């Protein structure tokens, strides 16, 4: 069974399918509360949700029955009482396995649990990095939104925050280095556009099949690294816009990736034609995949609202800021509607059991 978990401004909407063609709605849960993202751990069948209540604050709730019932979340997801920053929202959840889970929060920081989310503690070295003072809030907040453990090097962790940039640790979080060399910061004065840190990286995706390859959608600019982020090559010049939020890798072909170009403002598709762009040649060329997607449209797709499964042919899934969910069962060649008229969509997660 394939499960589609759609985090929205007013709850988590659930769909499932046996054949990736007919989708059954299981209805919303955490109703009325913003759910920024979710994550599934196949190790133990736990579904995690970033529930950011306007009343009760942020929590990482867990369900073992695909969202029918939830616990109240673990403890420790706070900065210290004397800390000038507060944890106000959870933006990312990354289960690694054997009870190890990372979570990214606003104000930007990284938490770790080694007991599957019962207790959380901050990975303090990240916010202690001297470049922390260069971090500022973007339009969505000052958030750590992307976490990845390198599939070829279990001690290597990547994170990205907005604005702040992408960072890497090679020792499981004890020391961090900014790896933004070559990534542009359009919002800074012309002579300061390549700083060490402070970039507004919107999303990155680590290739699961080629060591060192990372794809990155920046606040202006699409990049590829082949050396674990030590250097970056701009690969977005031929796109109709190199602004966007989301970027997705192919599960088997390291040279394929998917982005959704948006106008820098007002952050909807160029010419109001929603399209996923695919590269099959490591970013040299990009091809629009829009058959079945609406036009004109006046909505965008946020950083966690484009995802994929691991099937062949590849399944792609996206959710729009105007509450529509689309899926493709042929690697983007054609698209069908899964749902419409949902609240503003923050995230789409595909998980199989």
């Amino acid at each position: 069974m394939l499960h589609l978990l759609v985090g929205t401004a007013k709850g988590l909407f659930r769909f499932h399918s046996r054949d990736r063609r007919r989708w059954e709605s299981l209805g919303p849960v955490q109703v009325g509360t913003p759910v920024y993202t979710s994550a599934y751990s196949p190790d133990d069948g736990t579904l995690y949700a970033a529930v950011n209540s306007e009343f009760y604050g942020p929590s990482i709730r867990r369900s073992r029955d695909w969202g029918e019932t939830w616990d109240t979340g673990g403890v420790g997801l706070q900065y210290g009482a004397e800390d000038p920053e507060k944890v106000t929202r959870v933006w990312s959840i990354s289960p690694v396995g054997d009870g190890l889970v990372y979570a990214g929060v606003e104000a930007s920081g990284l938490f770790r649990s080694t007991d599957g989310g019962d207790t959380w503690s901050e990975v303090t070295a990240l916010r202690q990095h001297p470049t922390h003072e260069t971090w500022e809030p973007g339009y969505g907040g000052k958030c750590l939104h992307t976490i990845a453990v390198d599939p070829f090097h279990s001690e290597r962790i990547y994170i990205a925050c907005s604005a702040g940039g992408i960072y890497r640790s090679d020792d499981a979080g004890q020391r961090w280095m900014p790896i933004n060399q070559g990534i542009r910061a359009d919002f800074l004065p012309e002579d300061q556009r390549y700083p060490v840190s402070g970039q507004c990286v919107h999303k990155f995706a680590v290739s699961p099949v080629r060591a060192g390859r990372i794809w990155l959608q920046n606040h202006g600019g699409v990049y590829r690294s082949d050396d674990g982020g030590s250097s970056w090559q701009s690969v977005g010049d031929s796109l109709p816009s190199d602004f966007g939020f989301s970027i997705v890798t192919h599960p088997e072909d390291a040279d394929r990736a998917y982005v959704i170009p948006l106008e820098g403002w007002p952050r909807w598709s160029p010419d109001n034609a929603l399209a996923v762009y695919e590269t099959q040649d490591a970013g040299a060329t990009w091809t629009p995949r829009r058959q079945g997607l609406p036009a004109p449209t006046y909505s965008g797709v946020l950083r966690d609202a484009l995802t994929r499964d691991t099937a062949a042919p590849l399944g792609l899934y996206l959710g729009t800021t105007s509450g529509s969910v689309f899926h493709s069962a042929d690697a983007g060649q054609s698209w069908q509607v899964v749902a419409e008229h949902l609240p503003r969509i923050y995230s789409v997660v595909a998980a199989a059991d």
Partner: protein
Amino acid sequence: MVTVYLPDDLTAEFGANNPLSLDVQTLGDLLSELDRRYAGMAGWLSEADGQVRPNLGVFVAGRRLPPGPDSESSIPSGSEVWILRAISGG
């Protein structure tokens, strides 16, 4: 003893009794006692510095505590304490 009324959605999430009779003298005591009975509840109601979350209102003996009441706020014996969700959202 004081009588504490919690928001319905909070009691549903934690399976809590409502209202509760608690032997507490301050807001800090109250949060600690709630957390002892229902693990994690204090983190839902207050921030790391002990202040009540901004979109919650706390009424003690009919009077609303100032925004962001802290753990030292006193609760006279015999009071009714209401913790309510604020007007918020859209």
